[in-house]
């Protein structure tokens, strides 16, 4: 059986359209994931009751399959609120919440890796707990968490292919559609793999550049 390069090329515009959605979905989710994760990571090591809420959230999101979370939001919630949730919104919610839990653990580890002398020095200058976090701890922690955040970005980009199950036409879903028309799975899945590879390698390069910028590699 011959390999149909022409099919790969012909499919590219559609695949790239899907890839664009994959990138958008992942980027927005990582953005919200970082916001949620920073809050949850800080709550996780706080002294008040919020630590238990944060722990429960993190355990749930990391201990259940993303696929189940997607179904829960897309199929499970609408009957409760008596209205449908658009696929894009459901995907965004699931990916952001899922990513937030992983980012929370990254942020927690980053904060805890900062020498406690830093906190003491800030407090001895009369800084509030919040100012100590904002000006002293978080800026240093963020430098350290750039590499693991990059990994999380890449992991989420790959995991985002799961949202194809709720008919969101990202990269994987596009390929399924094309295969349904052409019956050429090998060419298409290989093309999808290559597009994913290009995206993940680009992200990893980007993260390396950011790391250098921030002087995390010393």
């Amino acid at each position, binding site marked *: 059986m011959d390999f149909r390069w022409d099919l790969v090329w012909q499919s590219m515009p559609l695949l790239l359209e899907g890839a664009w959605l994959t990138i958008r979905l992942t980027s927005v989710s990582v953005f919200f994931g970082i916001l949620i994760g920073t809050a949850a990571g800080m709550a996780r090591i706080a002294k008040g009751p919020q630590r238990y809420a944060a722990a429960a959230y993190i355990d749930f999101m990391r201990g259940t399959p993303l696929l189940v979370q997607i179904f829960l939001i897309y199929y499970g919630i609408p009957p409760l609120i008596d209205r449908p949730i658009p696929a894009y919104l459901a995907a965004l919610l699931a990916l952001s919440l899922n990513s937030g839990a992983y980012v929370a653990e990254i942020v927690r580890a980053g904060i805890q890796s900062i*020498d406690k*002398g*830093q906190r*003491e*020095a*800030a*407090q*001895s*200058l*009369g*800084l*509030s707990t919040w*100012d100590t976090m904002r*000006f*002293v701890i978080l*800026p*240093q922690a963020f*430098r350290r968490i750039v590499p693991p955040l990059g990994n999380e970005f890449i992991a989420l980009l790959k995991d985002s292919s799961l949202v194809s199950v709720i008919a969101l036409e990202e990269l994987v879903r596009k390929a399924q559609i094309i295969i349904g028309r052409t019956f050429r799975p090998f060419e298409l899945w290989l093309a999808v793999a290559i597009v994913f590879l290009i995206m993940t390698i680009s992200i990893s390069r980007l993260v390396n550049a950011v790391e250098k910028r921030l002087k995390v590699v010393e």
Partner: protein
Amino acid sequence: MDYIIEVKDLTKEFGGVHALKGISTQVETGEVVVVIGPSGSGKSTFLRCLNYLEVPTTGVIRFQGEPIIPNSNLQRIRSEMGMVFQRFHLFPHMKVMDNVTLGPLRSLGQNKAEASQRALELLAKVGLSDKAQSYPDQLSGGQQQRVAIARALAMRPKVMLFDEPTSALDPEMIGEVLEVMKALAKEGMTMVVVTHEMGFAKEVGDRVLFMDEGLLVEENTPAALFGNPENPRTQSFLSKIL
């Protein structure tokens, strides 16, 4: 008596270990109190209890007559007590200038011009005018510790606490830090200094506290304590180090 710090029946327990077993003493305004003692005697813990970096297990610390209460007056009182650490603890992601101005900008609400002006004066005072735009890791240990002193002074503290400020320094850098501290003492700054530098204690101290095993064993003027120690434990300690 005009006491700036009063310590009453201070104890501190870490997981069953009694680091401080009941300390009471006072610091007068303008006084330089030097705390000496063997390692593990609790002298650093004592100093760290003064601004509640360690929360006392029992006992009261009064600052200008006001008992320190966490979540109430602690943050304000800390802003009036400068602290210098053994390992400097400069903020590595900030330039020297930003290290020195952070406290005044955030805790005292000074404006940028005011804080920068004061920072430059203080950096000149510790001999580091040319390092304002450097990062801490570009400085030697002695220079970093002098920046740390400038950072604490920028808050215009009423008392300065020094926790073994020269113990992490290479020998050739100890002198430059001690010089800055001596100048400060000469200006009348109230200071509590935990140190192993007996020369500094003798020359600059108004009073020396000797601690051993979590107790304040003996306190006296440097001349009396070093020249004529009364307690056998003090005698034994001094005979080993002098």
